[in-house]
């Protein structure tokens, strides 16, 4: 593996990374506009489905069934896909998956591959591994292409370039896109799309190897499914001779009919569309039609250990729609990079630390990147109770000794009514000096640890009279 940091290990604690992101006003404006637009679109198309709640329940149940009998379904998928002419590989971790894929690409003799947008390949750092092996990976999703040209990393699961506005994208194209026609390149979306189309079309026609992920893998038939909007995926999945798909083991659905549930849930939740423009399905090799050399790499990379946790494993229901990102008030302010993982937002805060273990980098700070407002749970098409898992991970994760000591002390007081009442009196007494400097009952500065509060907002003081005194006098 190369020396690049792990794509799912946060290098900096979330509060610190968030602070940098908050300082970028352009980023905040871009995010606010973009998340509000997708949020409103999603709400409109979800509200028009009368049985939406039943669909969510069905989606959750199908995925829970998959997680309960994953080894059996994977074996079934492997047998069906193999019988249809695909070669199925198993990768225990990111390094093994990268090794398998680079080996397969090298065997073709190609030094360039076209890629369909895929979270699994980002999770394992495949592009960097291919580069180390002398293979150039070309992202063909428009937003992924923008991010790749900018030498940046994605900041959203579905909209990787959500942190850029169109004039920033125009600048990236002008500086980095080979052979771009500057005379017609404006920041008008059709002009930008046209430039990308010309750039990519040449790649589609000349490249002999494609790499994709998959949204779903049907155990019953051995079929892979890719859901997309731009048609670049369809190009990659049909034109090259060799197709390699990296698929997380949790992408399995038992039967073809189960797709009926997920193909309703996914587009409405992700892009806010009733139906996505392109749904590609392929089952092994069809002679004379599409790639003749079809490989599937089933990726574990921390998923099997998650199955042992009855609360945490619901994160593996995730279908990567990103609805939770778009409704999250924290994500809206800080964007994806602050989470330090290719999986940002609420789902990232529960998925990333579970895939790596909380000891990896600053991943233990991610479960605290939430007010537990619950908007993500309401939006999730497979009913992942994200607040529940956040709290669960806080309980099992490491805690600073000072915080632990403080919380324990408070807990000791709270279970003893007399200590508690004495504590109330003590705090009221301690607040007395601040009454001298309070304005309108509010103070502007308090000592540590409340200084973190008063850094950005005023604080009220406990009033002199207490409820208990009033109650006793009645």
């Amino acid at each position, binding site marked *: 593996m190369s020396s690049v940091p792990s794509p799912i290990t946060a290098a900096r604690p979330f509060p610190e990374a*968030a602070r940098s992101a908050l300082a970028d006003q352009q980023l*905040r404006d871009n995010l606010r506009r973009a998340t509000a637009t997708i949020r409103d679109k999603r709400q409109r198309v979800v509200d028009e489905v009368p049985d939406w709640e039943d669909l969510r329940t069905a989606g959750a149940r199908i995925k829970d069934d998959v997680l309960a009998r994953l080894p059996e379904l994977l074996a079934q998928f492997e047998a069906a896909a193999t019988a249809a002419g695909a070669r199925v590989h198993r990768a225990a971790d990111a390094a093994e998956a990268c090794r398998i894929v680079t080996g397969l690409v090298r065997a073709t003799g190609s030094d360039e591959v076209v890629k369909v947008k895929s979270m699994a390949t980002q999770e394992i750092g495949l592009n960097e591994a291919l580069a180390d092996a002398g293979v150039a990976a070309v992202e063909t999703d428009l937003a992924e292409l923008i991010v790749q040209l900018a030498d940046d990393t994605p900041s959203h699961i579905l909209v990787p370039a959500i942190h850029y506005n169109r004039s920033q994208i125009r600048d990236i194209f002008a500086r980095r896109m080979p052979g771009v026609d500057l005379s017609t390149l404006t920041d008008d979306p059709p002009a930008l799309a046209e430039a990308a189309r010309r750039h990519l079309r040449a790649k589609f026609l000349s490249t002999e190897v494609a790499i994709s992920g998959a949204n779903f893998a049907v155990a019953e038939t051995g079929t892979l499914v890719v859901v997309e909007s731009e048609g670049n995926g369809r190009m990659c999945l049909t034109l090259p001779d060799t197709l390699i798909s990296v698929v997380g083991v949790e992408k399995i659905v038992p039967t073809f009919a189960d797709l009926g549930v997920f193909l309703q849930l996914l587009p409405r939740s992700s892009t806010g569309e009733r139906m996505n423009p392109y749904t590609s399905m392929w089952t092994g090799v069809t002679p004379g039609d599409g790639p003749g050399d079809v490989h599937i790499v089933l990726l574990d990379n921390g998923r099997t250990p998650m199955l042992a946790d009855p609360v945490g494993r619901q994160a593996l229901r995730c279908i990567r729609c990103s609805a939770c990102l778009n409704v999250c008030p*924290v994500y809206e302010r800080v964007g994806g990079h602050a989470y330090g993982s290719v999986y940002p937002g609420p789902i990232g805060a529960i998925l990333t630390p579970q895939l790596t273990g909380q000891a990896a980098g600053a991943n233990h700070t991610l479960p605290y990147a939430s007010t537990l407002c*619950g908007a993500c749970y309401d939006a999730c098409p497979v009913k992942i109770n994200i607040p529940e898992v956040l*709290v669960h991970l*806080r*309980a099992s994760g490491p805690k600073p000794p000072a915080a632990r000591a403080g919380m324990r002390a408070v807990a000791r007081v709270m279970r003893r009514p007399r200590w*508690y009442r004495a504590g109330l009196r003590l705090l009221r007494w301690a607040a007395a000096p601040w009454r001298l400097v309070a304005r309108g009952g509010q103070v502007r500065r308090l000592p540590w640890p409340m200084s973190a509060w008063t850094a950005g907002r005023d*604080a009220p003081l406990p009033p002199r009279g207490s*409820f208990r005194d009033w109650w006793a006098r009645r």
Partner: protein
Amino acid sequence: MRIGLFLTCVNDLMFPGTGQAVVRILERLGHTVEFPSAQTCCGQMHANSGYLAEALPMVRHFADTFAGYDAVVTPSGSCAAMVRESYPTLLPEAAPVATRCFELSELLVDVLGVTDVGAWFPHRVTYHPSCHGLRTLRLGDRPRRLLAQVRGLDLVDLPQAEQCCGFGGTFALANAEVSVAMLADKTAAVAATGAEYVAATDNSCLMHIGGGLSRAGAAARPLHYAEILAHREPAR
């Protein structure tokens, strides 16, 4: 019906007027309210911060303290959510008392069947639906229905009302900058309504919003909706 008041630790220390308001509203409606003085805290801060073992004695203490009541009423959607939604899994023997715990608007509207509590409050008010009341308890429009019946009250819509104010308990300290960024949008939305008061079911959120309004020099003031419902027209 024996009604026990669970004041909450935040109100016990900071907002005695809210507890008094709940007592006044219920007594005005002909009910007797008791205040078991052994009560402390529901344990939400500990449970939500990942200190489950430390929270458990508080859960047990709450269950013991309120065991004899037909209904427990609390002026906090967040604490009611903690008790009703989390207690049964944390401590199965606390489930019976947990199911009898109601946020004020639930007790008034669902249990007592009242929306007009005879209040008078001649001011422009906007309402922030706090997250746990909104999404865990599913309070819906109960608090607004109660406010809509208040004589003289001009209830104005809050833009982006359902967005969190950024409080989140220890989040407000641990992720203070993000919390303040969320708060800035909330206080701007409140200010844009021109309301004199921003009301909510939870003083924790209101303490946060109020702190933001005060820092921004905005005119609007935070006020727990129970205090509005308790307010009466002075006798002439």
